[in-house]
């Protein structure tokens, strides 16, 4: 494979994998929390939270990217605090690409997990409570195992979405080779220069392979988990 891809193309692939993995894993706890809140809790502002979670799905990605730049850029409200207090800079860094990918993938992740939570019979959780499990333990020992297939499905969906994220990423962190040039950005860049079609095509094939792989993995993992959990899952 070494001779097949140029170092630049390798870099784009590796970066994309890293961005998508970090984006998925880092957003997963928040995704589970948001899904649980939307599925189970009744609180003022629930509709607003629901809207916020889904916004990236509906907004043009460029708008999401620009809003991220406004908020998390060096001069942005959040960006400034992160920079001054923690020394974290997101704009034009791979971490920013991960943030953009996570935000764009978040609605898909939350939807999948929320469906799984809504399918859990609350009476089972009630039964666990009468058997001595506190709320946290009920979640850890009953809810979580029962929604595991949904979490896996949501995470893989989010990963695939993060791999392909383009609009918000390029707006927020630009297209810097080795820094923020993910697979889609690289394909875009190669298509902008004469004679770049060959490289673009190779990356396109890789993108297709990764997407197919993710899909097959999600099916397989989902089925394996469902088998292990048994019953209605």
């Amino acid at each position: 494979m070494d001779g097949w891809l140029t170092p630049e193309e390798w870099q784009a692939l590796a970066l994309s994998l890293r961005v998508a993995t970090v984006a998925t894993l880092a957003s997963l706890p928040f995704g589970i929390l948001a899904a649980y809140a939307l599925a189970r809790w009744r609180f003022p502002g629930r509709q607003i939270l629901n809207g916020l979670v889904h916004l990236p799905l509906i907004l043009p990605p460029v708008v999401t990217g620009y809003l991220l730049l406004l908020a998390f850029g060096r001069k942005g409200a959040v960006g400034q605090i992160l920079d001054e207090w923690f020394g974290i800079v997101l704009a034009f860094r791979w971490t920013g690409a991960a943030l953009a990918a996570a935000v764009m993938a978040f609605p898909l992740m939350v939807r999948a997990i929320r469906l799984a939570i809504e399918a859990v019979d609350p009476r089972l959780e009630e039964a666990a409570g009468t058997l001595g499990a506190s709320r946290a333990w009920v979640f850890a020992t009953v809810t979580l195992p029962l929604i595991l297939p949904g979490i896996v499905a949501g995470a893989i969906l989010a990963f695939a979405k993060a791999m392909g994220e383009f609009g918000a990423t390029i707006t927020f962190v630009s297209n810097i080779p080795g820094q923020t040039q993910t697979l889609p950005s690289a394909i875009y860049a190669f298509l902008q220069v004469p004679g770049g079609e060959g490289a673009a095509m190779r990356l396109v094939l890789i993108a297709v392979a990764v997407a197919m792989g993710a899909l097959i993995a999600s099916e397989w993992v989902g089925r394996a988990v469902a088998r292990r959990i048994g019953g209605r899952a």
Partner: protein
Amino acid sequence: MTLRVELSHRFGAFELAARFEAPPGLTALFGRSGSGKTTIVNAVAGLLRPEAGRIEIGGRVLFDAAAGTCVPPHLRRVGYVFQEARLFPHLTVQGNLGYGAWFARRRPPRAEAARIVELLGIGHLLARRPDTLSGGERSRVALGRAILARPDILLMDEPLAALDEARKAEILPYLERLRDETRLPILYVSHSVAEVARLATTVVMVEGGAILCAGPAGEILSDPTLAPAFGVREAGAILRARVSGTEADGLSLLDSAGGPVWLPRVAAPAGTELRLRILAQDVLIALAPPAGISALNILAGRVEEVRTGEGPGAMVRLSIGEEHLLARLTRRSAKALGLVPGLRVWAVVKAVAVAPVSIGEG
């Protein structure tokens, strides 16, 4: 340990106001659907917070509206067996059984766990998943799961309602053994007179959100004024009897307070104490010991109370030694025989009138 409940709660137009005690043994909360039985049990378990009242078990306060105390469900040490077993689908039977035990601060010793598993006859199911179990097996596992959490009291909300007659007959003996072999007080919700007559040591009757009456099962079930609440065709008293032996013609002899009782072959070994539910409509009353009659069981007793209502029927409570029988006759017969309290009479019961399902242990 005794459970003391006093609570009031309102849902829309329905108002629940209950006050009763459940002493050790099996206390049946009996009443029609919608009378508030499940609400009471949910309040004891902490799944529902009543508007007012106080709930304590063995002196431990679970809920006190006045003091603002409301112990969360997981700290109440209350075992709840739901109508639908509610087994965890992602755990094996073993995992389900161990679930409550894992949280119990006083984990049951291995030997006791093994004894419960044996008592419930679920030892061969341990590796199975709940979705591969039959309804009766599921009920027994749910029961075991609740007991192994070492609760101070067991709550059972119509645990047999979802089962067919054969499965019910399969579970009833386990419940009897549980009642007699563990010292766990049991609060048992039911709308089946047959179940109550078979299992209960104490009966609390719930009607329209209020407690109609409460007392020892023998008293309540033989109370002629309560017969309409049980349904006149279902009403019947409990007679205790001890198995003496079985003869060659397949009849078993039992000793009761009113004399010998013959029943079609009883499987229990000699010496076993049985509770016979004798339906009021299966009892005849005679003023002299009848002769030349096919019925085998003639029990000596006295009239204790005669209850007549609007209709043509009459309910008569007889005292048979320390125990009671209930007889349903017509007002005309009661009048013709001149039945008055204190009168010496003989109760006639056909041997085949006592169905096997009406014979319980204990």
